[in-house]
């Protein structure tokens, strides 16, 4: 099942719309990828919270909810929120270990100039009107700095099932946009998809770029072995990012050779 199909099945499951066989198939997906089980749990709890607020006639995020509390209860809410943030920040500070330094080595942001742009319009057997119009829209949003709208527009392109060459470039661009939004899991997924794409129009330059960005993403996710593997791939290609990958790999290995706590 694709990710989208699993998400839709979770929705149907919570609504009570799945058959026994469909339920078992979904739980097998949860066993295969526990991440989806966590999403299911979160969705289930969120809906329960929403229903309980609805029954109380409150909305903690909307105008309807803003008058529901007294001044005292709102003050308590801010205190609680501040306390949670202090605890999280303090815990992170005390528990910061060597792995927490890895993100410092990675790219902070990826320049918008790295998006696969002009060459995305090369002719293909696709439906030029739908795919290319949507691509143009997505790139326009991205260059204007409307990252969220760009992400949605690029994801619409994926749903139009473009040819391999366009598909890998769209995944690259989604990876870049998610990276710059700090959503590194999503970014990794799209860079991986870009790198794994096969077929007509696939570019080795894009593959190299995706590997380079994926390595940086793994650093943010503190998955150092995966990051090293990607940088080694980039070095092996001996292309545009060869020197940067070599330098970064040297820094990581120097850090690993230092005694812990230094």
């Amino acid at each position, binding site marked *: 099942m694709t990710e989208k199909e699993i998400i839709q099945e979770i929705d149907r499951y919570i609504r*009570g719309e799945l*058959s026994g066989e469909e339920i078992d198939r979904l*739980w097998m997906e949860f066993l295969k990828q526990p991440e989806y089980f966590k999403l299911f749990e979160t969705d289930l709890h969120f809906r329960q919270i*929403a229903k309980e607020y609805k029954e109380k006639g409150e909305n903690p995020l909307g105008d309807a909810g803003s008058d529901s509390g007294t001044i005292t209860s709102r003050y308590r809410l801010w205190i609680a929120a501040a306390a949670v943030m202090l605890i*999280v920040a303090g815990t992170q500070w005390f528990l910061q270990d060597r792995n927490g330094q890895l993100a410092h080595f990675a790219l902070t942001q990826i320049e918008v100039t790295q998006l696969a742009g002009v060459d995305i319009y090369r002719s293909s057997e696709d439906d030029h009107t739908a795919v290319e119009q949507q691509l143009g829209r997505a790139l326009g949003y991205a260059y204007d700095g409307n990252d969220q709208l760009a992400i*949605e527009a690029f994801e619409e392109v994926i749903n139009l099932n473009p040819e391999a060459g366009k598909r890998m470039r769209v995944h690259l661009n989604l990876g870049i946009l998610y990276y710059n939004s700090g959503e590194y899991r999503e970014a990794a997924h799209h860079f991986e998809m870009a790198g794994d794409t096969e077929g007509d129009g696939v570019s080795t330059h894009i593959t190299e770029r995706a590997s380079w960005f994926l390595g940086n993403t793994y650093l943010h996710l503190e998955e150092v072995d995966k990051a090293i593997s990607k940088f080694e791939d980039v070095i092996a290609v001996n292309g545009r990012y060869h020197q940067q990958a070599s330098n970064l790999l040297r820094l990581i290995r120097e850090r690993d050779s230092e005694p812990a706590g230094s």
Partner: protein
Amino acid sequence: MDYSELVRAVQEGDERTVSRLCSKVSEILKKYMIAETEASPEDAEDAVQKMFEYVIQKIRNGEIKRPKALLAYMLKGTKHAYYKSLRDSDLHELDEHQYRPVTGPGQLLKLIDEERKEVLEKCIRFLKAHYRALAGFLFDHPDAESEDIAEHFDISVNNAWTRKHRVIKQLRECAENHR
């Protein structure tokens, strides 16, 4: 999750790895039993344990080699272990359980954890602005479908799925950070 690693670990007698991997999936299997049968958390735990005893022996005998087959065995085996324990105790209860209708929305309420709810309530207030609007809409319309979300925000149904999915992911990540 790589279940071929579990098969390898069992075949090689690597008990530490077997224990680690079984622990990872036990929680999911217990929740499956709680959601899909009348099992209490204690019964569910018991059934999962019995299932692993059975499945690990099957792997050692070479009767389960493919990870995909292993998943099916885990689900069915856990249910089977539970119903067997019922049969061994009360035949009348067993008949009722075997003919229980499939899960309705109410059944899943057994998976609600109050502590997790509290954490998520705090996390909802930390949602980024772009997601707060959607979350606010869902608080007013808890049963809204993607078509309703799409109509309200004047976006495509696909976008509605994507946005809602990202709200849930944000909440999940926040909840993980607060554990």
